C-alpha cells in the first residue's frame, strides 16, 4: 500500500466537500466577484482611466483588485470548519494533514481562478480591451498567480483565527510575502496586454513572457511544497 494515492484520494474527497458547499451557498465566489467589480470602480475614480491607461496601469489595477479580493476569500478558507467544531472532526478523522492543506489550497486556487475569469470581461469592458487570441496566455498567468496566492494564503489562513489581530493578520503576512509573485503577475500581464496594441506582432507567446511565468511557477511550486510540509505544525493540537 503506498501513501501517495491515499493522500490524493483524501484530497479529492475534501476538495469535493468544499466545492459542493460553495456550490450550494455561494458564500465566497459571489462576494469576491462583486468586490473586484467595486475595486475596479474605485480605481476608475482614483485615476482617469481609458485608452492608454490599459497598458500603463491596467495590469496593476487588475492584480491589485485580485489580490485584495483573494484576501477576503482566503479569510474564509477555514471559517466554515469553525461551526460545530468541524475542524476538530476533520483532525480526528484518519486524514493526513497534508491532504487537508492540499484540498484547501486547491479549493482556493479554483475560487480565485473563477473570480479572475468572471471579472476579466468587466475589466475588458472598463478598459476597452480588444478581445483576441493574444489573451490566451493570460489563463496560464491566472492559474499560476492563483496558485501563488493560495500557496502561502492557505497556510497563513489557518493561523489567522488564533490571533488577536483576527482578519488583520492575513493581509499583514500575505501582502509582503507575495511581492515576488505580484511583480511577475503584473509584468506577465503587461507583456500579454501589449499584444493588443494595434500593429504589434501577433505572437501567441511573446519571448519575454517565459521569464515572468517561470518566476511565477517557481514561487508557486516552492511555497506550495514548503507550506505543505509546514502545515502539520500549524494545525497540530
Amino acid at each position: 500500500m503506498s501513501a501517495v494515492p491515499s493522500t490524493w484520494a483524501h484530497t479529492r474527497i475534501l476538495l469535493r466537500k468544499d466545492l459542493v458547499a460553495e456550490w450550494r451557498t455561494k458564500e465566497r465566489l459571489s462576494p469576491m466577484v462583486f468586490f473586484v467589480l467595486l475595486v475596479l470602480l474605485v480605481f476608475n475614480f482614483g485615476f482617469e482611466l481609458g485608452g492608454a491607461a490599459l497598458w500603463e496601469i491596467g495590469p496593476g489595477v487588475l492584480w491589485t483588485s485580485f489580490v485584495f479580493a483573494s484576501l477576503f476569500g482566503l479569510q474564509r478558507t477555514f471559517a466554515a470548519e469553525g461551526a460545530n467544531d468541524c475542524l476538530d472532526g476533520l483532525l480526528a478523522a484518519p486524514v493526513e494533514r497534508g491532504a487537508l492543506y492540499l484540498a484547501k489550497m486547491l479549493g482556493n486556487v479554483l475560487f480565485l481562478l473563477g473570480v479572475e475569469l468572471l471579472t476579466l470581461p468587466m475589466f475588458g469592458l472598463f478598459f476597452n480591451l480588444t478581445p483576441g487570441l493574444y489573451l490566451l496566455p493570460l489563463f496560464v498567468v491566472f492559474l499560476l498567480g492563483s496558485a501563488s496566492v493560495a500557496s502561502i494564503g492557505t497556510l497563513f489562513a489557518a493561523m489567522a483565527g488564533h490571533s488577536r489581530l483576527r482578519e488583520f493578520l492575513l493581509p499583514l503576512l500575505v501582502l509582503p510575502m507575495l511581492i515576488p509573485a505580484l511583480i511577475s503577475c503584473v509584468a506577465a500581464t503587461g507583456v500579454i496586454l501589449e499584444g493588443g496594441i494595434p500593429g504589434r506582432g501577433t505572437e501567441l507567446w511573446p519571448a519575454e513572457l517565459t521569464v515572468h511565468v517561470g518566476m511565477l511557477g517557481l514561487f508557486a511550486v516552492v511555497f506550495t511544497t514548503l507550506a505543505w510540509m509546514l502545515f502539520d505544525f500549524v494545525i497540530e493540537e
Partner: protein
Amino acid sequence: MISLPMSRILSIVVTLAMLVAVCAVFLYAPTERQMGDVQRIFYFHVSAALSAATAYFLVFLGSVQYLRTRADRWDRFAKVSAELGIAFSAFVLFSGPLWARPIWGVFWRWEPRLTTMLITFTIYVAYLMVRSYGEPGERTQRFAAVVGIVAFVNVPLVHYSINMWAADQQLHPPKVELDPAMLYTKLICYFTFACLFTLLMRLRLQQERQAARLEALSRRTQQ
C-alpha cells in the same frame, strides 16, 4: 551565572571598537574621490546590512530548531534575532537615504537593493506581529516558527524578482578596488558591528530568559 562578566567584557570591547571605528571612518579613511565625505556613511551602512542579513538567517535557524526540538530557548533565540534584524534594517533604511540625497539627488528610489531591504523589513515586522498579537503559549511559538521559515525562503525570491523588475534602476555602487586604508576601516567596522550584534543578542536573550523564569515562578506561586 557566568554570562554576566562575559557580557561586561563584551560591552567594553564594543565601546572601544566603536571609538576606534568612528575615528577610522572620519580620520583615517581617505575621502572618496567622486562621492566625497558622504561615502563614509557606507562603512556603517554596509556593516548594518550584513548584521541584518545575519539576524534573518538566525531567525530561520531558530525557527527550524524550535520545530525540531520544541525547546523554548530556540523560540526566544528566533524572536531576539528578528528584533535585531529589524533594528539593523531600520538603520540601513535610514542611512541609505541620507547617502542617496546628495548622490542620487533624491532620498528614495525604487532601486533593487533598497526595495529588497524594505520588503524584507516589512516581512519581519509582520513576523513580530504574529508573535506579539498571538495568545502567549506554545501555539503562537509554532506559528512564529512557520512564518520565520517561510519568510527566509522568500528573501532570495524577493531579491531576484525585484532585480528583474527594476534592472535599469541598479544604482548601488559596483564592487571596486578599495584603497588599503578604506579596506581596513571597512574591516574594523565589520568587527565592531559583529561585536555589537553579539552583545545585544546576549543581553536580550538574558532578559527573555529571566522573563520566562519569572513567569514560571509566578505561575508556581499562584497554584
